[in-house]
């Protein structure tokens, strides 16, 4: 009887487990197996190909893109989260920023790319306006479609994502900690550097890692903006799968995907460790 009862919750999560198996576990196994095989036999050629200069460049660009947007988005998002955390729970400012952040953090792909193109692309509204009014050329040589452009566009969803993931940590700072620090003789700056800062640091670093992983795996926005070349890993996978110039690179795509899985897994493990530390403090 007791055994039967203990199995009941398991039945409830079966659909979710099935979902994970079909859309996470099986694809991961397929990627791993595919990365180490060629024509049905074990082969390390595709793994070795990861050290090619083009793949290494793409990895470096992906890391630069993810790292810089995580840092920019992280700092600006954390500042915004701190500002709205000081507003009352039901204030219009807080609700508006949270609602907007929830929406913008999920914005990406073709629609986001098009919005930027329509604004600061070659014939974008702002580009034309500034050109006519001030003779200022913000389009330049098409930087929007390079790594720099990707950094700007990615920040559009990285900043609101940071607000959403970092706000609970800021909200978790108890008023008693500030008041206790003050009664013990701490100035505002000393409270920030010796209490609030150390308490928020794990959550901040963890959030940066989450933003890094988010940008590292993003594909659609970059694909819509960059049609020439493969400056980052997701676009390199696209090229390996769809290129009409070099055929039969499907297993190289598996190897690159495996490389990305390893990077994201490492990042998310560090994120989980940091989150565990800060959640223990904020309990």
């Amino acid at each position, binding site marked *: 009887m007791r055994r039967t009862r203990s199995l009941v919750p398991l039945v409830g999560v079966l659909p979710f487990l099935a979902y994970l198996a079909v859309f996470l576990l099986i694809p991961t196994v397929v990627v791993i197996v595919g990365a180490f095989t060629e024509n049905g036999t074990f082969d390390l050629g595709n793994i070795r190909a990861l050290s090619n200069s083009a793949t290494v460049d793409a990895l470096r660009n992906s890391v630069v893109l993810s790292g810089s947007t995580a840092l920019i988005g992280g700092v600006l998002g954390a500042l915004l989260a701190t500002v709205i955390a000081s507003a009352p729970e039901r204030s219009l400012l807080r609700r508006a920023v949270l609602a907007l952040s929830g929406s913008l953090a999920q914005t990406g792909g073709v629609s986001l790319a098009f919005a930027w193109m329509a604004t600061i692309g070659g014939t974008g509204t702002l580009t034309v306006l500034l050109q006519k009014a001030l003779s200022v050329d913000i389009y330049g040589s098409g930087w929007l479609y390079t790594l720099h452009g990707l950094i700007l566009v990615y920040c559009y969803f990285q900043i609101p994502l940071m607000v959403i993931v970092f706000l609970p940590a800021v909200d978790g700072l*108890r008023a*008693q*900690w500030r*008041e*206790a*620090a*003050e*009664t*013990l*003789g*701490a*100035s505002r700056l*000393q409270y920030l550097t*010796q*209490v609030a800062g*150390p*308490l928020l640091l794990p959550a901040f670093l963890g959030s940066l890692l989450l933003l890094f992983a988010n940008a590292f795996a993003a594909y659609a926005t970059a694909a819509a903006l960059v049609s020439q070349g493969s400056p980052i890993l997701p676009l390199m996978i696209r090229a390996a799968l769809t290129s009409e110039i070099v055929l039969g690179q499907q297993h190289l795509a598996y190897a690159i995907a495996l490389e990305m899985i390893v990077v994201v897994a490492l990042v998310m493990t560090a994120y989980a460790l940091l989150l565990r530390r800060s959640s*223990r*403090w*904020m*309990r």
Partner: protein
Amino acid sequence: MSTSGKGPVGVEFVDLHRHFGTVRGLDGLSLAIEPGELVCLLGPSGCGKTTALRIVAGLDHPTSGEVLVGGKDVTGVPTNKRDMGMVFQAYSLFPHLSAADNVAFGLKLRGLGARERRKRAYEMLELVGLSVHADRYPHQLSGGQQQRVALARALAFQPSVLLLDEPLSALDAKVRVQLRDEIRRVQLEVGTTTLFVTHDQEEALAISDRVGVMNAGRLEQLAAPAELYSSPASQFVAEFVGLTNRVPAQARDGRAIVLGDQEVPALAGSVAGDGLALIRPEAIAVEPDEQGTATVTQLSFRGPITQVHCELGGSELLVQMASAEAQQLTLGGRVRLVIAPAPVLVVPA
């Protein structure tokens, strides 16, 4: 052991007002705490006791009035310059610091060297019986242990004044009693002037030199616990502190006649003429008597004492007596009620 090299100082509230919109959180609170004294502010929720304490700490500001510490006006002094240790209700330890580092926090801000800080922190933890847990983090300590560390932290830098904001309210009953006695022991040992805020009358009566009973932003009475209990200055104090029977009475010339023909002294502040005498349950004796006018309606055994409910002339009286004596009473039995000749307060009916 005296932690304060500066010597204890007095604290004075001078006509403090604190208004929250139209609500008067404090309505002219004046009160003086002697150097080295432990005074409890006692009262129901919303009476202004925590507001008063926060104003002393500088965490809130009065609408008008002054706070004097050692005779100096500190009303405009920022919290971090007030030299006051404070223990909060709960969860005020810094979670990323060990118990020792929490205690040493105030010392670090005052520029003490690492070795001196560590030594001092251990001394303070020793004082509250937690030196063995010096390296533990708050989440590794029980609620009672955390409050002990908070007490050690508040005292470590030898503050002029110690403020305690319902420090026991989040603890279970047994720990609360233990820590209550611990706080008093430590306070007597260090001799720091202390203001303790609580809504628990037993707590206030047990550890205070004097208790200030607050109601609606005002101080109803400030007195030693025994005086507060035996000679309440107002109906509110009589009914808020301890249990009270309301017995019809006639008061005149400093005397009150209760239960028909029994005469007892009336406290200053009693009304003249017909009114209600406020009588403590233990000030009434119950004697079995077939000719008695009261009837026992309920007997409630409480260990060393028994609570006896008696019906008299349509109203119910509560009596507390030694359980050994209560054994001679029976449910439904006729009894005679005798009032002890202690002064009673007579209030309007």
